[in-house]
């Protein structure tokens, strides 16, 4: 059937959450990786191969993943509403860090307008009201542009409107696509694949860069990124997405291998660009991390930067090819 992914047939609950084989595979694989990483660190610690500083750092990072993974995978498995709620919360957390890093938080009115926009666009996703959902991007653009005019304070106008528009684009309109995907009844394996592929993309870039990296890609933006790392991540992620998404897209217009390879390229390229975008923001501000909430990772944005551009790019590609999220019922709340 075109237009939707495989519709779950199990009754709502635990059985439905894990019905799709790709869902099972991804959950088992991520838990497996976490357990394996812990065992390796434990082995290194017991054989005294690592010093106390590195040991602490490794445990902190692994521990942070141990908290993050259930928070990321749990809502997706739990259902549509949970997924959209989690994306809303993620958007608000990202906005908070961005506000404090750029200084936009001092503009209480505009910071509030952007937060309102994030709530509205996620509400439109929850309502499954595509017309309102896409209308919010231009409408919020207008609201952000006019909100501070009555304050009669033209100094800094372009800067605050620019910062606020950028914020809504990234954490509202852009990120909310991830939640909107949950309007497709078979969204679980797809969203899980995106979450894990984006994380793997980062890991692959890091690993290939360490192993083969010589030439730096954009040294002024991000001194640790190499061309070898970028190409290695592109190859790994493209192949992984193309391979794993086979059973997800069986029977849809996305079934042909070349389309799934294109999807993989989109995920990898948009993921890496999202990373470089945050690096550009941080370099311009002269800061290292956006926050401190995730030990070993930095802020929420430092962890989820890659998702910001992947979500809208993947959604609109899939909507174009197979009408993802177009099947009813629509306007569940506003009727």
């Amino acid at each position: 059937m075109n237009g939707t992914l495989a519709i779950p047939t199990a009754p709502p609950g635990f059985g439905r959450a894990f019905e799709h084989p790709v869902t099972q595979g991804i959950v088992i694989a991520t838990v497996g990786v976490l357990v394996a990483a812990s065992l390796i660190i434990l082995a290194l610690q017991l054989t005294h191969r690592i010093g106390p500083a590195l040991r602490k750092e490794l445990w902190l990072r692994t521990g942070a993943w141990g908290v993050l993974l259930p928070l990321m995978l749990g809502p997706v498995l739990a259902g549509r509403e949970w997924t959209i709620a989690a994306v809303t919360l993620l958007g608000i957390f990202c906005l908070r860090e961005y506000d404090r890093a750029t200084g936009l938080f001092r503009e209480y009115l505009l910071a509030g307008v952007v937060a309102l926009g994030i709530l509205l666009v996620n509400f439109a996703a929850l309502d499954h009201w595509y017309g309102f959902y896409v209308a919010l991007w231009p409408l919020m653009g207008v609201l952000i542009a006019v909100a501070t005019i009555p304050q009669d304070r033209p100094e800094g106008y372009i800067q605050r409107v620019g910062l606020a528009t950028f914020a809504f684009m990234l954490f509202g309109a852009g990120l909310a696509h991830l939640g909107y995907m949950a309007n497709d009844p078979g969204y679980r394996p797809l969203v899980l694949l995106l979450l894990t592929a984006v994380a793997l993309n980062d890991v692959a870039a890091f690993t290939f860069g360490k192993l083969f990296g010589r030439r730096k890609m954009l040294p002024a933006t991000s001194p640790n990124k190499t061309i070898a790392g970028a190409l290695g991540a592109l190859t790994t992620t493209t192949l992984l997405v193309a391979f794993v998404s086979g059973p997800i897209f069986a029977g849809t217009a996305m079934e042909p291998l070349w389309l799934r390879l294109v999807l993989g390229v989109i995920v990898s390229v948009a993921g890496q660009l999202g990373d470089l975008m945050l690096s550009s923001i941080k370099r311009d501000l002269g800061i290292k991390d956006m926050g401190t909430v995730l030990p070993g990772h930095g802020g929420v944005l430092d962890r989820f930067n890659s998702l910001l551009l992947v979500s809208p790019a993947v959604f609109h590609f899939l909507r174009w090819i197979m009408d993802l999220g177009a099947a009813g019922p629509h306007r569940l709340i506003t009727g």
Partner: protein
Amino acid sequence: MKWELRPARDLGLSPMDRLRSQGREAGLGSLAAQGVWRRMVRGYLAVAHRLVVEGRENLPPAPPYVLIGNHSSHLDALTLCSVLRGAAARRGYALAAGDFFFSSGASSAFAAYAVNALPVWRRRTTRKELNTLRDRLVEDSLVYILFPEGTRSRDGEMAKFQMGLGTLVAGTPVPVVPCYLEGAHKAWPPDARFPKPSPLVLRIGKPLHFAGQPNEKAGWAAIAEQSEAAVRALIR
């Protein structure tokens, strides 16, 4: 056109360090929490203590300025905060004893999110912390509420003013507004656990200016002396 990206002064601090930082800046969440708390306090002071404010017109039209007063109970800072309105209320910070209000996580969160207090460590405040407070007052256009006696009076009588106030305002155009709160010692003496409802009268005097005072010991001493005299003049 001035393009200026100014990250929060407290960026990069862990949550606990941020609560205790002199550079803590309020975001939208803190603003909402403080707004709710302020309105609750105003309502409580009006109902339980029949608060009367005299000389409200002496408050400068816009921040920055410093409110000082006699200190005999925990009601003092709440009362002084409650007379601020608009931008002055949003940017009003009570300078509070760090060892008392910022010792545990819960009390720090309350002091930061509800009262909007900044910690001052008695006899341990560093030069750097004092400079942060002094710079922020002008740069961020703030209102500070502080009690130059340094601690609550045990018997209700006003003690001699300390010199800390001077380090914040000496040589700056920031006005200092003297206030005298009457009835607070009776309403909530230091040995009582809870306040009892009894009347409060707050008198606000004319602002003092210390732009001409040098930022050194002699200037600080003169500021302490003149401020103390201005507050005493409000006693009836």
